[in-house]
């Protein structure tokens, strides 16, 4: 066989194999990726790195609440962050599906993520998404939603308002081993809302526990102003040691440079009772402190920035 014939046959074979194209080069996929909440967009901004032995007590309580809040945001968004870095498994008009994939943590379960887009106008985008789980080998009717969310853009694809819902009890009832995480054994469901199109940016998180839990619910409300100042209100509803339903609310406000104030209020039997107040400076050390128990007052209340 001549070299010319070999070359000609090689070219012919190549021509036959040329039908398909591949890749993830897509403008529309960008819409789905942009609509997913980013952790840093919905996390609370507080200078949590500044801690001193003599930091104000309520500053430390605020810091702890912010860290807990942010950790739960990370846990939630990590579900969708997994799909942000990968091309969809299938595309169907305004719907993208990732998976099903076997769960890394629970190999007998598999996971899928489904996102549905509806463009209201060229600058307004609505997106719904959900993370479903099911036992391996089951049909489509076995899918149970672990997480669901929606997003409406305002002004740009990355700014708008959205919500995330985590259905712990629903997947628990379906057999999903969610209770392997000790932090979730009392959780019924968790809801997050956020709005970042304009200042003040806000994020709320509502935790609803099972009826059998001592702590019935918790609520975080975070707001961030354009000048870097922020606030967070976090409250808990639960039974006291005496079996009385009580609500504790801490309201914290801080400036971008660090100084802030926090007030703790207890609402037993519909009676609001301020338990204490702390004001702190940029170094987080208390400049003013008041505790109702013992009627203790330290510092100058005029030093409070709020």
């Amino acid at each position, binding site marked *: 066989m001549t070299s*010319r014939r070999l070359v*000609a046959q090689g*070219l012919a074979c*190549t*021509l036959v194999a*040329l*039908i*398909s*194209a*591949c*890749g*993830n*080069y*897509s*403008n*529309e*996929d*960008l*819409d789905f*990726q*942009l609509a997913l909440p*980013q952790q840093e967009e919905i996390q609370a901004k507080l200078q949590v790195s500044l801690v001193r032995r003599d930091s104000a007590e309520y500053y430390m309580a605020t810091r702890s609440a912010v860290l807990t809040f942010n950790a739960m945001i990370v846990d939630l968004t990590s579900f969708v962050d997994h799909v*942000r*870095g*990968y*091309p969809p498994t299938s*595309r169907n008009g305004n719907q993208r599906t990732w998976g099903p994939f076997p769960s890394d943590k629970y190999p007998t379960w598999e996971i899928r993520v489904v996102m549905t887009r509806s*463009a209201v106008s*060229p*600058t*307004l*985008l609505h997106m719904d998404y959900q993370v479903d789980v099911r036992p391996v080998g089951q049909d489509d009717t076995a899918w149970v939603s672990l997480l669901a969310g929606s997003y409406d*853009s305002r*002004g*740009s*694809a*990355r700014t708008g308002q959205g919500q995330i819902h985590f259905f712990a009890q629903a997947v628990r009832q379906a057999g999903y081993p969610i209770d392997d995480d000790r932090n979730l054994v009392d959780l019924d469901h968790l809801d997050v809302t956020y709005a970042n199109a304009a200042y003040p940016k806000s994020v709320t998180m509502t935790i609803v526990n099972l009826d059998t839990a001592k702590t019935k619910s918790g609520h975080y409300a975070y707001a961030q102003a354009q000048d870097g100042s922020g606030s967070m209100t976090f409250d808990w509803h639960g039974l006291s040691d005496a079996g009385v339903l009580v609500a504790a609310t801490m309201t914290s406000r801080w400036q971008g440079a660090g100084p802030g104030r926090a007030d703790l209020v207890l609402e037993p039997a519909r009676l609001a009772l301020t338990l204490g107040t702390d004001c702190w400076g940029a170094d987080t050390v208390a400049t003013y402190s008041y505790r109702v128990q013992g009627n203790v007052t330290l510092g100058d209340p005029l030093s409070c920035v709020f």
Partner: protein
Amino acid sequence: MNERRARTRAGPLVAIFFVLVAWPAGAAAQHRFALIVGNDQGGADTRPLRYAADDARKVHKVLTELGGVLPADLALVLNQPAAEFWRAVATLEARIAWTKQRGERALFVLYFSGHAKDGDLRLGDTRVRLDDVKARLLAGQADIRIGIIDSCHSGMVTRSKGARHAPAFTIEAAGSEETRGLVLLTSASADEEAQESDEIGGSFFSHYLVSGLRGDADRSRDRRVTLSEAYAYAYARTVADTAESAAGAQHPTFSYDLKGNAELVLTDIASRREGIYVPAHAPAGVYYFVDGNGFIAAEVQKPAAQDKQIALPAGRYHVRRRLADRLRIGEIRFASGQIATLDEAGLRDAPFSDDPVKGALRDPGARVSLGLGGTMQSFFDGPTRESLFPPAGMLGLDLEIRDFFRRGWMWGLDFASGGARAETDRFGTNLPFRFVELSAGTTLAAEWRLGNSSFASFAGVRLAFLLMSRKFDDPTIPSQFFATFSPGLVAGLRYRVLRHFTLLGRGRVHYLLYNIDENRSLGYWELCGGIAYDF
């Protein structure tokens, strides 16, 4: 298509010593020598010829088969430098001197096919002064020296001798003495191009010279072809066939300084009873006999009611006779020592597309070039261009092989890489990105030389493999890629600026099936400019 091509060989004559035999009755036996030189290359300021070496091979063949030249007395110098030429001249001169010392008569033919310019014969990058060649012929010891030069402006060599371009010449028969002296034949006048033809696979002059020597020039029908018969035939056919060419009519010339009365017989058809006989009752016209390699081995112009015989080596030949609206084609074969009679009834009608010459395969000698160029690519669709695949500039390498699959075809491989900065807007969010593209393509194109200029145009098809990717400035957006094959059309011009360098301009139009979000048929264009080095 009868593509004619000028041989840009200026100048002086290349002496072609063509062995002719003075074959007068009663003449003493003659020892014949021949130096056959063919060179396709002519140096930096010339374009390569296609058929110079082929023409030399044909002349070599007819002289050994019918011209009485023994292989030991013949030197074939193909695509060799001047040193090889002079070495062959010296060797043959020594053999001629030895022959003369034995008291034998000697005839020496020098045939040259190639470039000539500014008084030089061009042998690749080396040169041989025509005056030197001419002086060597004049001083030669052979009784008869014949120089045949097939090159552009070759008439310069005969001009100083008072040459003429005339349909024929006659050697005076003033006495009984044997012929002695020098004859020079050239394929073109001093101011004319010598033309090649793809259809006949050679230069017009050499083609008709060979056909004539094989018998078609035998006007006297004595089965011998004399120098004057061969010249008259080659002159008439060359002028007729080139009259309508872009380069204009080509007129062979001659000059001679001979003494004696013997006719110079170049080939003896009767000596080799092997060939094709065209009987008198066969239709008049031009018959072509095409060998197995697609070469026209011989051409016969048959008058009405007159037979013709052509001497050819044993084998199988396609026969072609061209009519106004069709071809008459057939096949004829004969064994060694046989003369086959052409039977008109054995021919059949065929369309011109079945021309055995055009369809024949031959080894053209592939030519390779390596190019470097810049390409601008842009999609036709506006939204695609603005947000998906932005216009991109690329740098690339081209490897092209010409006359590989077929003469006049070019097969190329190209690789290019480039990119651009761009941005896309999604619901008010601006996303800048860096677009990068790698492409590899293969092209199959036909080329046409534009007249006798250094321009050539080409058009063909191309298949490209594209790998396109983009990386967003926003690190949270993953990089994207798209890989696909893309068929397209390509056309362009090339212009040879130097012997080895060609400027290139081309345009491409491609189809691309984009199937990520949805199936979309897209098109894009590419404009490319570059320079190529021809090996």
